[in-house]
């Protein structure tokens, strides 16, 4: 078991400067993508993508709803990569085109 005190599991320590991408909800991850610069998205995507297979392999050792805090953070970062790839792989800019008014959309898991 890795230390609860470290931000990320030690084998992924080099990703710690990007730990602000450990966002709890889909809504937050979407907002982060849309409010980041193109360079910030590329930096995050570029650092995470080559490690994704190792990250998932590591995270699969834990029950999904009972992970140590550092592993949980890493999972949330992995979910953010899925979100960010919409920009880096498809739209080539932070926001998608022809988006609906953000003030009138609600995204959740229990609505």
């Amino acid at each position, binding site marked *: 078991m890795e230390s609860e005190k470290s931000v990320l599991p030690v084998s992924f320590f080099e990703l710690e400067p990007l730990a602000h991408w450990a966002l709890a909800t889909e809504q937050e991850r979407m907002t982060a993508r849309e409010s980041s610069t193109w360079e910030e998205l590329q930096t995050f995507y570029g650092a995470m993508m080559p490690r994704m297979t190792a990250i*998932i392999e590591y995270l699969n050792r834990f029950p999904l709803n009972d992970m140590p805090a550092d592993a949980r953070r890493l999972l949330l970062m992995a979910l953010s990569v899925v979100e960010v790839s919409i920009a880096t792989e498809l739209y080539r800019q932070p926001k998608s085109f022809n988006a609906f008014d953000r003030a009138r959309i609600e995204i959740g898991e229990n609505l």
Partner: protein
Amino acid sequence: MKTEIADKRWVKKYPELGTEPVSGVSCISADYFERERELIFRRSWLNVGTAWEIPEPGDYFVRELEVCNASILVMRGRDKQVRAFHNVCSHRGNKLVADGRGQCRGYLTCNFHSWSYDNNGQLKWVPDESNFHDLNRAEYGLTPVATEVWNGFVFINLDPNPREDLITYLDGVAERVKGGDFDKMALAQCCKFDEKANWKIGIDAQNEIYHVPFQHRYIIPDRFIVNEGNFTRIQDVTFFGRHSLYTCEMNPAHKPVPMEQLIAGLDRAPTRTRMPMTSEFDFYLIFPNFVLIFFRGANNDLCLTYNFWPLAVDRTMWEARTYLPPPANASERLVQEFICTRLRIVLDEDAAGHETVHAGMATRAKKNILFQDEEIQLRHFHKVVEDHVQLVEN
């Protein structure tokens, strides 16, 4: 000029639907909308949620039905039965539950004078009861609303005497959608769009594939099969009374982006859910405003529902819910995130489009709208709406 329909399959199968342009006035007329309220929404079976959300006795949710000026309380009783009631106290007509969802372990108590009801809707306690005049509590339970559950989907009908039960209403859809693993599904995501658009514009936009390679050219440019003249042809269109089904196949030549390749390569648990599908993509419009979609998944099939709740002639709350089996590990959680994020972008583009279509139609520059053969299910929908609304004149 003669219309050439030699290769137009659907109008040959359903010639009664015709080929004429369709009036757009039904989407922008306030008078038409008032008739829809009375003649469609107050008399049809309406999906208001799922029984999965209220698994335990006493679990409840409230659904505000602005279109019918109703507030509906859906609750599981101590006998496990799901019932719907008007969310209104029998004493002075106060709204009983403020909003949302909850658990009624003992009683639901009115905030005004503490009249209390059990989870079967019976009036159980009235403060200072003997000071009322011959009050018989048995007569003053919550007002029941006709309720039926089908594959876990809760439907209500505001008609005090519905002219048909839900299974009769669903017609051939009930026969077709049978035996899926609905009980293994859980809500993975819900998106709600408060749209400045008529409810039928939203349904029309979702009820065809024609727009997909154009409106969704970045997010899903090649998801559906391309099989005739460079366009997607739907596999089948079937009408079941008021309801419709169209089916489509996915594109085997679809080119996955890197994230999709990563997701496709993840280890997953064996398949847990299969939906009762006839193709790889089944789209049911259950009249008037409920859509049930099944996607064939690599592992688990996906169930997606839409509820289009009219708020006004030019305002609709579009609710989209994605159901998947709960993820068991990080791999499955990432698969779920991939599905939900991509779907959200598609819906986001659709919702924006509903508004621009409404804005265009509201200018009244165009009297009619046109439907091609692959949009025949929209033609059917407009005809069913028109048939209901015409009743008022008879």
